[in-house]
């Protein structure tokens, strides 16, 4: 079975290796440049007090914004193009009739294939993760590990994302039995799980902390650059919070007077402290692993019953 899996997927494996190598070279080149810029930032004390020359240096890190795209596209491509056809290609070419009537059972065929393909996929994503962590470490130190461009590609969440995409591909293939439909369904399912978790659930894995400050205070209290600021707004006399200001100011009022006139008692902002980073990573990892395991069990059940 190992030989068969290797023989059927060696071309795909080679492509993945080439893609990884290209990405690796790109990360190495841009990463060295970023490390260099970071060194200058430290030398010119930009991390402590920001001055005009710092903005220029920070431009060097714009490349990191490609991170979230990478975090979604790579595993998704792997799931849709390698895992979705795992079952459908056999059914479409009718070779399942050949392979399921050899001396090994259908379940053994499936479990060995899953183990090898998933194992290789996780290995590849793990290797890339190591490079990515080094690559965006300057960004993590400046903008914090909760930054969207860092968070997705700096811990177990990245590997779990890959697992999810692969597992969904296998499930979609076993469900639809048609390659095109399976590729489409893989993408839909992946985004349908990933987007709500990232946008709605992640900011609330734990109750955010709140700081309030007086309305005449010019600047909010400084958060650490590792903290993740979520929202800011106004608190009225009843203690109600609102994120947008519904009132109108006249020309001769100061901002403070205007806020007072509209019943605003204080400003607030909510944030997730930086030391929750690993807790959040493991919670999100757990969510993706649960979905992956469900998808894989469903796939096994579907293949067992496939007529």
């Amino acid at each position: 079975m190992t030989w068969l899996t290797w023989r059927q997927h060696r071309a795909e494996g080679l492509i993945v290796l080439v893609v990884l190598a290209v990405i690796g070279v790109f990360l190495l080149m841009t990463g060295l440049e970023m490390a260099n810029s970071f060194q200058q930032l430290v030398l010119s004390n930009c991390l402590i007090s920001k001055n005009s020359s710092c903005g220029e240096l920070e431009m060097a890190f714009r490349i990191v914004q490609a991170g979230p795209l990478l975090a979604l596209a790579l595993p998704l491509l792997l799931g849709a193009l390698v895992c979705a056809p795992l079952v459908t290609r056999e059914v479409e070419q009718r070779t399942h009739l050949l392979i399921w009537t050899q001396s090994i059972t259908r379940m053994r065929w499936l479990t060995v294939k899953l183990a090898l393909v998933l194992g290789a996929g996780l290995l590849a994503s793990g290797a890339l993760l190591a490079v990515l962590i080094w690559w965006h470490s300057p960004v993590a130190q400046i903008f914090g590990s909760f930054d969207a461009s860092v968070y997705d590609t700096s811990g177990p969440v990245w590997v779990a994302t890959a697992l999810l995409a692969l597992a969904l591909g296998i499930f979609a293939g076993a469900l639809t039995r048609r390659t095109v439909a399976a590729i489409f369904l893989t993408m839909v399912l992946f985004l349908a799980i990933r987007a709500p978790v990232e946008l709605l659930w992640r900011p609330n894995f734990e109750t955010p902390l709140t700081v309030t400050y007086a309305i005449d205070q010019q600047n909010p209290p400084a958060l650490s650059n590792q903290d993740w600021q979520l929202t800011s707004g106004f608190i009225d006399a009843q203690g109600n919070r609102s994120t947008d200001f519904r009132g109108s100011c006249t020309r001769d009022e100061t901002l403070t007077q205007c806020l007072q006139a509209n019943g605003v008692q204080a400003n607030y902002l909510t944030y997730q402290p930086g030391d929750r980073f690993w807790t959040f990573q493991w919670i999100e990892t757990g969510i993706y692993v649960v979905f992956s395991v469900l998808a894989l069990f469903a796939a096994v059940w579907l293949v067992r019953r496939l007529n």
Partner: protein
Amino acid sequence: MSNALETNKLSKRYGRTWALQDCTLNLPARRVAALVGPNGAGKTTLLHLAVGLLEPTEGEVQVFGCSPLRQPTEALPRLGFVAQDTPLYKGFTVAEMLTLGRKLNPSFDDAMALARMQKLGIPLERRTGKLSGGQQAQVALVLALAKRPDLLLLDEPLSSLDPLARREFLRTLMDAVAESGLTVLLSSHIIGDLERVGDYLIILSASHVQLAGDIQEIAKTHKRLIGPRQDEAAVASVHTVIEASHTERQTTLLVRAHGPLFDPSWEVQEVSMEDIVLAYLSQQAGDRWPMPPSVREQNGREVFK
């Protein structure tokens, strides 16, 4: 266990359509059986049930006493299967297909497979997708034979082959049968070929087994009766009338005789196997052939469904 394949009230339903219904048959070991029936009769369904690719809706199927679905580790090594249109991995070379067979089957006979490929002149380094249809069928057959199965099932292996490829395919098959004494169940709608290689016949039509038995026995018991125009009721009380046609002056019956024919007014003729099969197949879907009451008691078991 003297039966290679046994089914008991085996039925398979897809949605609301029965692909196979109430199929009870025994295929004795060391037979070469032909499974004939029109397209859509349930031949493929029966074969897929027998190799555990399908789960029965009702009833059961056993291969050498094992359920192919519930005891796959016992049943699968004893089964060889060549699916319709002989699917192969088109990107694999012939040598890689043999490696596949060797890796997935503990008793794979590599030497035999290589020898047969050489004899057939099939280049080992060629991709199977580049082989002719006849060669692809041969590769699939050799792969199934090299597994050293006790029961080989072939689903319409001849339908897409030209007459020459068909003859060579059957030669490879019969060589293997002569060498190893394996049991074969071969489905087809080409009757002539089956008569040449088979010694057992199963007729499947309209999701039901219409007839199953030794070919010589079938040939011996099926007769054509020609006589002056008359009602077939008298004959039907003793024998089973499969087909009756009447002209103005003459009545022709195809009967399965359950004993000697005494009435001298009938002229008795031999019937070809093809005519017997066609007579069974040309009946309407709902037709059954009840045993005459006298015979039913003697035999104890109904042959006709």
